[in-house]
């Protein structure tokens, strides 16, 4: 079975300063595999500064990894050239968080849709291009006559974000990197954008990497989840298991902080330790905030497989057998139980 995308021990370190250069580890030794013929939705979750967006940038080939390789359909993406690179650019699409920043304020929003059509020669005539645009816009619940010909500032954030999704749709990608696509969108529109993404996966065979801090939407859309904290994988597995019974103290903090829209499930009353700036790069990255930190935590814990489809990097689960980082993808489900 061919792999669509493979991350092999990818790390990314940012350094700043010429003299006394300080480096920040944004991602540490991440290995992941997405299969070509099994489109899935995988969530990458974590709070700000956990390396989520760095991962998105790496996957899109915007920045090279410091160590390790990113393999897309058998080729290292940093070595792609010419037509291969163009094909990669078309097949791997992105929807970004900020629906305000991706538009050029001097052009009407049509520009965002016509450029990719021209660039990738998707239409033979103007009429065909227009028909494609209309179809993509309707698929995300917009009325073409309402948005085409308008300038970005005349549209709401939700409309703009849906145009971004429409743009990605237009190109019929194989992999969509969605970096917080709904965090700036209304709750009622959120449902329709998530629905669009899910249909994309189900009906068009597009794999989606859904990057978010919002575990509620992750729970509803994804099959598997990876929880990042400061560049390291804290917990991974089936999204139902991880969210309903989180095993890592960090995942518990995240799940506890979800503002569930019910009155019976309130925020916990424990005070949260503030995140320290910097922090040491050895050992468990969460140990300075962890209520259960032990002496042992000063060395990096491996991933322990707690259940067939759940693993956590925490010594609290040391009685389970550990698994090698590159085998993590084997325990991530591709389909949810409902579909299987």
């Amino acid at each position: 079975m061919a792999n669509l995308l493979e991350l092999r021990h990818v790390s990314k370190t940012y350094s700043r300063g010429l003299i006394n250069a300080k480096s920040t580890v944004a991602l540490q030794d991440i290995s992941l595999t997405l299969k070509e013929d099994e489109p899935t939705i995988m969530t990458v979750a974590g709070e700000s500064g956990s390396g989520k967006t760095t991962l998105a940038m790496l996957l899109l080939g915007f920045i090279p990894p410091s160590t390790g390789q990113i393999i897309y359909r058998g080729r290292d993406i940093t070595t792609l050239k010419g037509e291969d690179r163009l094909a990669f650019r078309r097949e791997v699409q992105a929807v970004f968080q900020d629906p305000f920043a991706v538009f050029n304020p001097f052009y009407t929003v049509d520009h965002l849709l016509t450029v990719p059509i021209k660039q990738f020669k998707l239409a033979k005539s103007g009429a065909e291009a227009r028909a494609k645009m209309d179809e993509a816009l309707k698929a995300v619940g917009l009325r073409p006559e309402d948005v085409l010909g308008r300038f970005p500032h005349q549209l709401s954030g939700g409309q703009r974000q849906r145009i971004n999704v429409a743009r990605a749709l237009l190109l019929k990608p194989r992999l969509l990197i969605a970096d917080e696509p709904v965090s700036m969108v209304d709750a009622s529109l959120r449902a329709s954008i998530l629905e669009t993404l899910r249909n994309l996966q189900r009906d068009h065979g597009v794999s989606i990497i859904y990057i978010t801090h919002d575990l509620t939407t992750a729970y509803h859309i994804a099959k598997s989840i990876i929880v990042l904290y400061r560049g390291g994988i804290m917990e991974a597995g089936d999204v139902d298991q991880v969210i309903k019974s989180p095993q890592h103290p960090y995942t518990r903090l995240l799940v506890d902080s979800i503002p569930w829209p019910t009155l019976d499930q309130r925020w916990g009353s424990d005070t949260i330790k503030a995140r320290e700036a910097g922090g040491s790069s050895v050992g468990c990255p969460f140990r300075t905030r962890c209520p259960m930190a032990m002496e042992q935590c000063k060395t990096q814990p491996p991933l322990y497989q707690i259940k067939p489809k759940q693993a956590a990097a925490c010594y609290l689960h040391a009685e389970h057998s550990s698994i090698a980082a590159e085998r993590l993808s084997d325990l991530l489900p591709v389909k949810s139980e409902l579909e299987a």
Partner: protein
Amino acid sequence: MNMGQDQNPVLRVSNLEVTYYTDSGRAKALDDVSFTLNAGEKLGMVGESGSGKSTLALAMMRMIKPPGRIEGGRVEIGGVDLMSLSEEDMRQARLSKIAYIPQGAMNSLNPVTRIGAQLVDAIRSHGIKDSRAQVEERCVNALKSVDLDPAVFRMYPHELSGGMKQRVCIAIGILLQPSVIIADEPTSALDVVTQRQVMETIDRVKDQINAAVILIGHDMGLMAQFVDRVAVMYSGRLVEVSTVREMFTKPVHPYAAALISSLPNLENKGVFQGIPGLAPSLLRLPGGCSFHPRCAKVMDICKTTRPTTRMVQGNRLVTCHLYNEEA
């Protein structure tokens, strides 16, 4: 609970109306909005984008800019109608009587001046003539009350994280101990853990100065965790105002009911139940009740007659023809 009928509310908004005069016509962004709020009470203001939530906040601050205009209504705080104040008196009232924490507040800090200078400026511009040391102490105390280190006083905005900047904005908001704080989506750009910390901060400082808080947003989850009462806006009108328990267990307005049932929770995995149809443009509002084209319980009268706001089931406000007979 009898909060809606308290005799001495700290804030009383009555018949507030705002219209934007655009090239393509008049858009009534606030239509006959009335509500009251007591000291220490937390009101959540929810609605889709374009429903008038932020316009309401700006109108209460008298910060509506042309082509928008406040057409009428009163905003009384402690018995004083803000609409009747002179420009200078209104400037003094902002921050000392009513504070506004805008959406994406972190971007409202000046990037080239220190946090301390921005706090001091807020105090000095309200004519407080205390000594420098006293003013500084007051600022540092405000920073401490939002869980920030006093060292932040000497820092620049870029040295702080998003959550910290948001807390600086809350600190500025409470500097002069206003009786009403309006927070417009204070946590929309923050992650869940930081969001919880910021909301807990707002809750704590609210108790310290016994202010009333209006939380504007569209995250019903946050509302369930934070507020006492929820007001639902739709195309410029308040369609329902209920306590948070009533709203989540038995919403009366069909739009509020659709909003509540569209919420994701742990039980209904994979079900995305949006509200059918699109929010109407304010320039082309449907006749009668503006929600009628999307309403599941639409009646003939809804298409022709505009419903009025009524008090039902004790002190819940609802704007819907379904409840005419109950009045």
